[in-house]
């Protein structure tokens, strides 16, 4: 079954180890600006939110690419960029509503999260997430669990209102 990158912001401690793990894996150097996952840190609100490519079913970046450089690996349901085909036109960057694909001046190619095309084990960011705010989980297990969690909160509210 294809897996998804699940993000649980409540567990994130804002250490940014995921950014470092990502940049080393794909770039060989420590550089958060080259990471495909980013932790947004809202200090005042005490909210820390990692974001990365959602691997859209209907991926606008892939659809708009004039050279078909963005392909999906159907085993892992992850889109990846074929370097040889990418001409650096930036259409994907414009198309993505999440800012999850970027172009870098040094090689002029698009880069995005490909879930490390993990055949065995977790993507690198998940491996280095000590507080387990990032999980590599079965695609449908997570939403069902979330629905249950929402229902649980609603139950508490109903009890309060009724009470």
């Amino acid at each position: 079954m294809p897996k998804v990158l699940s993000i649980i912001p409540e567990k994130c401690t804002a250490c940014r180890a995921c950014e470092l793990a990502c940049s080393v894996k794909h770039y060989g150097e420590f550089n958060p600006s080259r990471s495909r996952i980013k932790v947004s840190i809202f200090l005042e609100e005490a909210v820390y939110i990692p974001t990365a490519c959602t691997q859209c079913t209907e991926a606008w970046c892939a659809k708009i690419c004039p050279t078909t450089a963005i392909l999906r690996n159907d085993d892992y349901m992850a889109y990846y960029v074929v370097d040889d085909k990418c001409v650096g036109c930036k259409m994907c960057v414009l198309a993505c509503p999440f800012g999850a694909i970027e172009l870098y001046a040094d090689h002029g190619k698009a880069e995005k999260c490909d879930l490390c095309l993990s055949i065995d084990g977790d993507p690198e960011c998940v491996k280095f997430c000590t507080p387990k705010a990032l999980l590599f989980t079965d695609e449908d297990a997570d939403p069902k669990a979330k629905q249950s969690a929402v229902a649980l909160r609603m139950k508490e509210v109903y009890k309060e209102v009724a009470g």
Partner: protein
Amino acid sequence: MSWSGTILRVNLSNGNITKEPLDLKLARTYIGGRGLATKILYDEIDPRLDPLGPANKLILVTGPLTGTNAPTGGRYMAVTKSPLTGAIACSNSGGYVGAEMRYAGYDLVIVEGKAPHPVYLWVNNDRVEIRDAAIVWGRSTHETEDALRAATSAEAKILSIGPAGETLSLTACIINDKHRAAGRSGVGAVMGSKNLKAVVFRGTRSVKVAHPQAFMQACSTAVAKLKADHGSGEGLPMYGTPGIVNVINAHGFMPTNNFRFGQFVDADRISGETIHDQILIRNKGCFACTIACARVTEVKAGKFKGSGEGPEYETVWALGAMTGVGDLAAVTKAGYLCNELGMDTIEAGVTIATAMELFESGDIPEREIGHPLRFGDADALVEMTEKLGRGEGFGAILALGGARLAERYGHPELFMGVKRQAFPAYDGRGAQGIGLGYATSNRGACHLRGYTIAAEVFGVPRKVDPFATDGKAALAKASQDATAFVDSTGTCVFTTFALGPADLHAMLELATDAGYTVEEVLKIGERIWNLERLFNLKAGFSAKDDTLPHRILEEPIPAGPAKGKVARLGEMLPEYYRLRGWTPEGVPTPEKLKDLALYPTP
């Protein structure tokens, strides 16, 4: 590898901005951070100069592991001559700004001179500008960060001073990422003396290590050890540093009411457990930190309403037990004020406690303060903290720090500290090793130059009797040298609960490929310690300054498990000098300096 290789030098007097290649041989000899910056400061300034004059330099420095995935690899240090002590200062902080400095491309930023008007430094990769700071002068560190991020980049990381630093309070620290402090020795006043309000970093470059895959593997091994350890894996993330309040209090060496007592009756009201239950929102990590000991907290209601990070152990002690205040909301509020106004919570708390004792003894007249200032008065604590930070009213006198306050009112012996820097939260009468550590610390009283408490209380690496003096000279020396090494790498001393020098050496070597051995990195720690000592000797310090206050040496702790104890410094200090290879006068011998490659005296 792993050093960026560039020094940014900014002269605020004439506006010159230069970039110099880092001498990599020198970097290898001192590793980075505390060691490297101390060497550069030693070479570039006269240790006798006025620390608040334009000739003093402020060095912001990272280590070769800052900006890497080494657990806690996000530290930076501020190294300068301290205006509080007159000795060498090295204040260390986490957060994100250190890593961002590396990503901008710099190992060190050396700030010289004095700007003709308030300025901030905007370091955007290789574009560096000195900008007018009129819009943020006078404002809190939080307001300053918000305003300067708006004026530069939403992604910028910032260190700044608050009103305390601007008004040259000797309690002033440097605050970064709103809640993290390069706290001790008055380094914020040095920034203020240079009219430098803030340094803003934005970097998109890389930190490179020699063997990325093996390095990441070593990081994973270190993370696993940190997670498995009771302190760094459970206690610190769950209860933060205040998790030890009840432990230290139970040992009977929690200094209370300006060290008049060894136990605080209200300790549990300011403990990590109570913080967890009453005000904690969540825990948080600094950059690359898998321990995540920071407390994100909120006092939701009442007159001490507020939110922020902390209080840390040292904060609940200095603003709590030391002032006799057991009201967690008040202590937390005072801690928030210290972060916003830019004061070291230890120096601020101890100063207020000193004032309380001097008020109760009748040495400070009530008319000078404007109202009574007694131990245990929560309202007075919060009011005095704010006045201290702003330098208003009696706060302008408190802003001088506890040592000068006690001297001013004719009782220098009532200041609890060494070399005019306040003690932290362990009584040297109870833990003999930490007492020796305070007396010999190169930056004045400090627990973070050599945390002998790890052995004396927590049994790391092995338990020793806190009340014994046997072996404490060796323990203090070993802790001091190892810590100088840790500080120089750019990682946090809290890793040492679970990681030994060999673990950190493994990461450092894979990052730098410098050919270090474990023995050599510890020797480098010793070299750094001796160089700091040489700086202080040149600045005018001598063995007579390696001492403790009368109260600690002569007045026994009156009650509790440490009842009857005094610090037996005389039993330890001669042995300490001997083990250090120093003369009985505390001066490193030529043989020792040769052994450390510090001879002829640089």
